[in-house]
């Protein structure tokens, strides 16, 4: 028999990942946001978040953030069991307030970036990154 156990297993892993979709912003993510902002209002805009629409590999998804004049930018993977990814702090000597990293996503979810601006206000951007088993493009 030419039964491919390996393939069944590989696809099975993909299945475990996608059956619980889509994730919503969970309580843990809300807690992280509250801790970062101290409960202050968060404006939309002023933050650039660059992430792929569909992840090529959910285990290593490149994301970039930038916010002019920011003193810190926090990145959250809102659907991960542990949503906190990173907080980038920018000192007064920083030439640009931007950073890039790679993150692991447990499934299709929103990635959120929240920037603390120089005047103490907060701004955010979010992007939906889809994690798919793929395979039928034509």
């Amino acid at each position, binding site marked *: 028999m030419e*039964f491919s156990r390996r393939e069944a297993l590989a696809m099975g892993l993909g299945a475990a990942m996608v059956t619980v979709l889509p994730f919503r912003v969970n309580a843990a993510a809300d807690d992280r946001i509250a801790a970062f902002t101290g409960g202050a209002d968060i404006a939309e805009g002023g933050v650039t978040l660059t992430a792929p629409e*569909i992840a090529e590999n959910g285990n290593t998804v490149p994301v970039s953030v930038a916010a002019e004049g920011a003193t810190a930018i926090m990145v959250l993977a809102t659907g991960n069991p542990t949503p906190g990814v990173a907080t980038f702090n920018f000192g007064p000597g920083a030439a640009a307030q931007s950073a*890039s990293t790679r993150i692991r996503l447990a499934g299709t979810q929103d990635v959120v970036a929240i920037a603390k601006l120089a005047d103490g206000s907060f701004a955010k951007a979010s992007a939906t990154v889809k994690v*798919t088993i*793929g*395979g*039928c*493009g*034509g």
Partner: protein
Amino acid sequence: MISRRDFLQVSMAASAMVGASGFANWARLAAQQSLTQDQLLQFDSFGNISLIHVTDIHGQLNPIHFREPSVNLGVGTNKGHVPHITGADFRKAYGIADGSPTAYALTYDDFASLAKGYGRVGGLDRMATIINAIRADRPDALLFDGGDTWHGSYTCHHTAGQDMVNVMNALKPDAMTFHWEFTLGSERVNEIVEGLPFAALGQNIFDAEWDEPAELFKPYKFFERGGAKVAVIGQAFPYMPIANPGWMFPEYSFGIRDENMQAMVDEVRAAGADLVVVLSHNGFDVDKKMAGKVQGIDVILSGHTHDALPEPVLVGKTHIIASGSNGKFVSRVDLDVRDGQLMGLRHKLIPVFSDVIAPDPVVAQLIEAERAPYKTQLEEVIGQTDTLLYRRGNFNGTWDDLICDALLSEREADIAMSPGVRWGPSLVPGDDITREDIWNVTSMSYGQAYRSEMTGEFIKVILEDVADNIFNPDPYYQQGGDMVRVGGMGYRIDITKPQGERISEMTLLKSGEAIDPAKSYVVAGWASVNEGTEGPMIWDVVEDHIRKLGTVTLNPNTSVQVAGA
């Protein structure tokens, strides 16, 4: 500004042909008499720049039949808009007469009888004649290949794309972008691209490790034409490592990267571009969305989703041109560019009627030479068909019904799955099925036909996942294929629902019972993107099946119920 007239000339000539179908020899003669090469090529030169666009040829060196889809549903804001209209709605939208050559070229109805009347379409030797005629009219016309060229046939597979490279080089393109080419594996792609006598473009082709633009593929190229600077930016298929096996080209990363596209447009404008053209393999709806987000693109030459549109679609100030697939069409776009601005555009989608357009002798000889070593293999007759065999359509096509039948029977499976690709020519009733015909709808570098056990729950996950890749209302989350074809199982799909809620009423056809989420079923399929997939090659499975059948006769497939269309 957009010339409707140029195209309508073709359909006007057609009206005399109504009723001619069904009388094969007489009708074909009539087609030749009423439709001439001059007529197809007729074009009043316009402005100072000409672009020629061909795309998604999928290895088809010779003329073929190609039936356009009857079902091509749009979702979200694209519902009911081109290219998501078919048949009579399509003909009405463009004023095309029923039964005309244009109706035959662009719509599906009455395909088998019109095919007998109007003959085959395509062939790179005929395309060469058209391209040469345009160049005779405008010697510095630019020729662009939108990709999916080095894939899709017996000879292409056995030469690892070299047959297409050799013949296309004779057509002298100025630039190309990519999709299925990468399924040759990165080593082979790099080898070919390093030797290409024209630009290999893709602003979204990145080095996977460093997340920086890949060195081998430039984002854009400048051309000086008609006293203007023309910048052509490449856009490769964004979802290659997802829709195709990423392990075959692990060094590369893609994505839409529209922020980088904007940066490239700004860069070429700053460098003095008078005209900005994007040579795209995004797919039509993705191109439409991108045209609305990225400012400063004049023309998008759109490929991937195999749509053929007789007029450009205008989004803001961006004209999107869709030029079909499988060698069936050549688009000519004439532009008037003055003072750093696009002042006007004239366009014609030229159908490559192979009985009307004379083959270019030089290219015909090249094609012959590429095929000669494989002639016996290509021409071996495996069986016949009584049924029109086609692939295009969102949910099923008869070719895939046949392939699924082959998988069910040859691999002794409960359920069969066939990928929702859009390439593959058609055969009309009465045709022989040769080995070449089978390879035209199956050949690829990962054609292993797996046999595996899957739970009912997992089968639903697959269907939901693929459905979202087609029916997600945001085009940026679509991959541009059709729904995975399923044999041995029926289901209902509501395309308006979110992922996880579209698929219901999954039924095992042989027992009539509902699919049990907890139960395991034997599933046979092919074209898995997973590394290490084992099984016989799909073309051998299909060949064995057809040999046993002798003559293929398929019943209409009613196993997929569609809601929300």
